[in-house]
């Protein structure tokens, strides 16, 4: 087993005798810089970018207009009614927070698990996290009805001499989502500093040099800096890992600490976390497949990466299916007639359509990922992942709306119907998400260059069992072209 040669276009081998390469196409330090930095350096993006941006910013404008209308007129413009006081707003909130879980998961947990394939996709996913959390934050803020008083949620010294109620799960949400947004941003930015320095050093215009220069903070990639940087990165990863679990757990507490049938169940925290990772990864794959084709990143973000993410989707999809089943079983086993009614009503009541969309998309659809063919064929995985995203939105819809619409008092039963504002804001949140995402694609390094370089084979060979062929540098002063290494890498230990 000396040198392994692989077919150039595929690294999805299952052969246990070797590790598939992380990147394709004989990557070098130079080629990685070129591939990634060039995307952000184009004077003008391709026309398709403009088209996408026009669509998404139009939707964003719709979101803003809908929000202004809602703030001006009142929350009544939503379809929320008694007793369905939580509807699209909280559904969207939970949905987007869930989407936001993939980034930190890839960045932090896979980092701690030494999954080196994360390096190609983590930047992308972290950016998604931040944008998703922004989208998520809008809805509860608006839902409080008087959005201009949103600062009342913060514990600050005030002339009313009151403090927030820390025994309320809604306040935990403020802290959890706020901390999550902050830490995700720090993590994303810290990881991006070396890459911003790369863009700074390659920049040709003064404006870009100043702009990237400021945000790169004068990074020099020095040995002493790297030492502390790596330690800080690991600490942040260690902190972000329990954080990411806590955030959706806290979101689940919003429901589960109540006594509403269908909400109050102890499995909610891990179940919500699994669902969040599930939907987050599905969103990453949905966006990654077109983006890697569109921006020429197929060699850095390979089918292998996508396949690995699809496996995570399969695993978390099964966990979600497990939770659905256990909930149903215990609803019967517990012997509480209200709980039983809540579940029967979910499956066969007025929202039966939503429930079966949820089950089909979340439990049935990802089972396709048992097949390698589906896991490694871009168009197939995109279909499954889009279904998963739809299913996860409906999961939140089912949880929120079916439980509320059938209150304890039949006199208060009411069917919820979204209004045009509801639907506009849902679509608008997607618009905002994609707008931010497109801006990110245009101006920032989409792949963590320094991290991908660090997992090129030569680097970590120092103490590794895989000793690569000796490097053959072509260093010759001014025309230094970087160093070629064999494109054979391990994806993890």
């Amino acid at each position, binding site marked *: 087993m000396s040198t392994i040669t692989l077919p150039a276009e595929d690294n999805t081998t299952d052969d246990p005798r070797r590790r598939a390469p992380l990147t394709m196409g004989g990557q070098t330090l130079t080629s990685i810089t070129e591939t990634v930095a060039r995307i952000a350096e184009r004077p003008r993006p391709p026309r398709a970018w403009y088209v996408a941006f026009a669509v998404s910013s139009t939707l964003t404008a719709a979101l803003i207009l809908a929000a202004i209308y809602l703030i001006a007129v009142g929350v009544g413009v939503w379809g929320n009614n008694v007793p369905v006081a939580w509807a699209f707003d909280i559904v969207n909130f939970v949905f987007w927070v869930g989407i936001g879980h993939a980034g930190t998961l890839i960045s932090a947990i896979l980092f701690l698990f030494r999954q080196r394939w994360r390096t190609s996709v983590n930047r992308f996913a972290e950016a998604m996290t931040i944008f998703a959390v922004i989208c998520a934050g809008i809805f509860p803020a608006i839902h409080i009805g008087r959005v201009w008083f949103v600062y009342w949620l913060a514990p600050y010294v005030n002339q009313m001499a009151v403090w927030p109620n820390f025994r309320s799960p809604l306040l935990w949400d403020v802290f959890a989502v706020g901390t999550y947004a902050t830490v995700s941003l720090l993590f994303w930015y810290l990881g991006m500093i070396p890459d911003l320095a790369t863009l700074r050093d390659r920049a040709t215009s003064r404006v870009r040099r100043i702009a990237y220069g400021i945000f790169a903070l004068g990074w020099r990639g020095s040995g002493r800096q790297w030492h*502390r940087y790596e330690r800080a990165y690991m600490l942040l990863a260690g902190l972000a890992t329990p954080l990411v679990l806590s955030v959706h757990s806290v979101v689940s507490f919003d429901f589960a600490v109540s006594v509403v049938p269908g909400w109050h169940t102890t499995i909610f925290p891990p179940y919500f976390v699994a669902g969040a990772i599930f939907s987050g990864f599905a969103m990453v794959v949905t966006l990654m497949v077109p983006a890697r084709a569109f921006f020429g990143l197929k060699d850095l973000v390979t089918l292998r990466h996508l396949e690995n993410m699809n496996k995570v989707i399969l695993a978390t999809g099964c966990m979600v299916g497990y939770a659905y089943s256990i909930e149903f079983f215990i609803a019967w086993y517990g012997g509480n007639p209200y709980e039983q009614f809540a579940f029967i009503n979910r499956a066969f009541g007025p929202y039966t359509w939503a429930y079966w969309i949820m089950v089909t998309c979340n439990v049935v659809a990802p089972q396709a990922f048992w097949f390698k063919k589906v896991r490694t064929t871009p168009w197939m995985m995109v279909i499954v992942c889009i279904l998963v995203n739809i299913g996860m939105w409906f999961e939140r819809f089912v949880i929120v709306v079916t439980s509320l619409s059938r209150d304890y008092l039949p006199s208060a039963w009411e069917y919820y119907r979204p209004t045009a504002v509801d639907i506009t804001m849902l679509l608008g949140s997607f618009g905002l998400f994609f707008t931010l995402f497109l801006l990110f694609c245009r101006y920032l390094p989409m792949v963590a260059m320094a991290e991908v370089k660090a997992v090129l084979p030569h680097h970590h060979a120092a103490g590794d069992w895989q000793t690569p062929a000796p490097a053959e540098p072509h260093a010759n002063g001014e025309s230094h072209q970087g160093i070629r290494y064999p494109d054979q890498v391990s994806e993890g230990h």
Partner: protein
Amino acid sequence: MAEKEPTIADAPGGAVAALVAQFAGPDELVEAASQVRDAGYRYWDTHTPYPIHGMDRAMGIRPTVLPWMVLAGGVAGAAAALLMQWWMNAVDYPYIISGKPLFSLPAFIPVTFELIVLFSALTAFVGVLALNQLPQLWHPVFQSRRFARATSDGFFLSIEARDPKFEESRAAELLQSAGAVAIDVCRMPATGREVPTGVYWGVATLAILAILPPLGVAWYRSGAKKLPRIHPILDMDAQPKYRAQAFNPLFPGGMASRPAVPGTIAQGEMDENTALYLGKLGEQWVDEFPVPVSMEAVQRGRERFNIYCAPCHGLTGEGDGMVSQRATRRAEPNWVPPLSLHAEPVRVQPVGQLYNTVTNGIRTMPPYASQISVEDRWAIVLYVKALQRSQHATLDDVPEEMREKLR
């Protein structure tokens, strides 16, 4: 490439600030780093596009204190969160919610956890920047033309001139022997060393301008103002409802409070009892109090008398109230000083007549029915009777045992 002499690039400028040497690859750089470390330099560093495994050992870098800082941050976060929640919910604003104890540890754990993470993460971020002395937008090594590759695909080693051991030729020699493929000499720039005075002036101007808003607020705060209270967000401050005595343009006189429809009798004000309400029985003034006579009633009467009657009649009923005195002093032409309540005609009036006077006024005295309730009017009459008696008492009025003293 070791046999090939490195190119040494120099550029015009001031004193030498640093030498930047490029190396062929990471392994060469690690090797060179251990040589420079052994040579005993302090202000030197390696520059690579990604962290190099083994570089810490080669450079002799000791483990950073960052983890301890982060631990301290986490402990601070836990302490801050628990203290904050305890103080806010159990001490300063105690309020029982859904039957939970004021200090509910299980309910406080989520926020405590989040703040541990938040404080730790902020410490990690600020800590790594501070330890790395970032942001540092200018550094001598940036003078090197080829150094731009350090963030892409180049491997560099720099030695700074501020190092006490630094000597240009010796350092260059060391780098050459360590296998540098190229060496750049970085010189201090001729210009731009000192902070331009404009920056100081700018900051000073900002500082001066920053004083104005607090001064303005202080001025506004200190004086009287014609503006009603400023609430930036009025929200439900002004609700579309009418409070007592508010203005309402819909009604005549702009009065929001509607007067009773003529002929309305409010509950409890059905004045069938003419003795009580009018002080009359038929055409005769009543001479007996239609209300219970008690010491409390006298006290109440005195209090009400002092409020409503004393301004003119004076506290003793002599007619020397402050208002009366002032009117007399000012020689008000229309002013008629009130009759002393101790005057004979008044003294002999039956209580019903006195009551009627309070209620409806008499001569220049205005009616007080709108200001004083029926019971209070009777109480005042009672007190007036007591006042009168006090000025015209006989020995018979004095309790037996006190009479001796008076003699």
